[in-house]
């Protein structure tokens, strides 16, 4: 981004005027009795507080310019994403103990490997920890990995539940656990990857990605913004694939005993 192109400034007053747009949704909710008023108001306030806080955090991080602080922020992102992905899936504390490490490993590997590749091979970030690049890139990657992990966990769990008979029929014929649940793992991996595949197909036609739009609004050359966006799309695809594969392969193991037995359902 060149320095002579200044994006149009948004003052606090103008921001407040923009918030009035939420009133449209609020009015609809009241009129149609959707019961969404509380969610909208709380959501709008949370979004404001969170983003403003993150804004100041980023300003501070850019100023102090310390590699360990950047890594700490990335770690917090992975941790929050891990618990968010695992939360929906784990009803008991026992399940949480097995699911959290799986989601954590899958998100860390999927997002981490992708970030390293993008910042070393493609964008040549200097210094290597430059927060202006690492934090926004990693944020996008982690969010995608988190969704992939959550989808994979949820789908594998329901497939394994629905396919208990099939899995045991395979085991009884001498199948390994991996063979016995091959259809379940395949479907769970597909389910986790579908959003990424669909996003590739519709980008630019149905959706104009927020990052690219933002860069253009901020004065960047649209052609460069497009190339950045393509890098982002490809990196999200890779992160999704790695996270989905690790989640499914690790999570499926938790359904079996070492003696290739399907664990019984939790007693009621």
């Amino acid at each position, binding site marked *: 981004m060149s320095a002579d192109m200044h994006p149009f400034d948004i003052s606090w007053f103008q921001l407040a005027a923009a918030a009035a747009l939420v009133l449209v949704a609020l009015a609809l909710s009241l009129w149609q009795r959707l019961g969404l008023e509380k969610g909208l108001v709380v959501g709008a306030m949370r979004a404001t507080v969170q983003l403003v806080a993150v804004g100041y955090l980023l300003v501070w991080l850019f100023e102090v310019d310390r590699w360990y602080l950047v890594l700490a922020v990335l770690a917090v992102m992975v941790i929050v994403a891990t618990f968010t992905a695992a939360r929906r899936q784990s009803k008991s504390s026992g399940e949480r103990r097995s699911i959290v490490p799986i989601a954590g490993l899958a998100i860390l590997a999927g997002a981490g490997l992708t970030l390293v590749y993008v910042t070393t091979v493609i964008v040549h970030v200097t210094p290597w920890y430059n927060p202006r690049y690492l934090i926004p890139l990693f944020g996008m990657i982690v969010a995608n990995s988190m969704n992939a992990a959550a989808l994979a966990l949820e789908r594998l769990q329901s497939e394994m539940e629905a396919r208990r008979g099939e899995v045991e029929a395979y*085991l*009884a*014929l*001498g*199948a390994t656990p991996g063979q016995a649940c091959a259809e379940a793992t395949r479907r769970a991996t597909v389910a986790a990857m579908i959003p990424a595949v669909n996003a590739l197909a519709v980008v630019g036609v149905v959706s104009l990605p927020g990052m690219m739009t933002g860069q253009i609004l901020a004065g960047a050359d649209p052609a460069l913004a497009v190339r950045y966006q393509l890098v982002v799309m490809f990196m999200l695809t890779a992160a999704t694939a790695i996270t989905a594969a690790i989640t499914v392969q690790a999570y499926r193991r938790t359904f079996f005993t070492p003696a290739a*037995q399907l664990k*019984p359902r939790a007693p009621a």
Partner: protein
Amino acid sequence: MSAAEAPASAPAGSSPAFRLRDVRQVHGARTLLDGITLDLPRGGFTALIGPSGAGKTSLLRLLNRLDDPVSGTIEFHGRPLSDYRIRELRCRVGFVFQAPVMFTGTVRDNLRAAHGLARAEVAPVDETRVAELLDLAGLDLSYADRQAADLSGGEKHRVSIARALTTNPEVLLLDEPTAALDPEVADRLLHTLANLRETTGITMIMVTHRLREARVGATYVVMLEAGRIVEAGDARKIMQDATHPRTREFLQAGEGDAR
């Protein structure tokens, strides 16, 4: 019966197929099997009978290690089950489930599945073998190309029996294979199983709550109730002259459906 006592009437002659000693199984806080000590004969047709919830299926599932007991020992042909590689054990001890599960594809695909899963242990299933397996299960050759998912309940049972035979098992475990079938179809299936025993000499152990099925062809009967063995022994003896009052009650109550 205490664990230290002799097993419930050890069959005379040959060594047993399975030897269970003080086997306990639980699910959560519930006791499913409460100290089972039992020898199951090699060869012949053993019927596991008893009211529902007696632990019949829980017991059957231990024999090819679909589950492991929480305590006690089980031997197959004189060696502890844990001595066998799990794949070898499951190939030698086949299992037919109460609700047949068809794999995707044709009946032939189903019969070829086991070889695809374990190429070292399971011989390839050629067309001759497909015909032979279908015949043993009482299906004609035209079934080979049918989509397995489209078959009727009784036909699916036959395919799952044929599929269990693809690994050349010495023992076939059957978990109430007729439970969901109407009486006529069930009768034909039992007839097929009797033919299968005659042709192959395979050891069959079948869970059933239909007494009639135990009467037709069973050589050995184990009566279970509340996770314990009430009585076990030669089928003719138990059917005609059960020593235990609970067995007699169960047999008499079952006369109604004995047609």
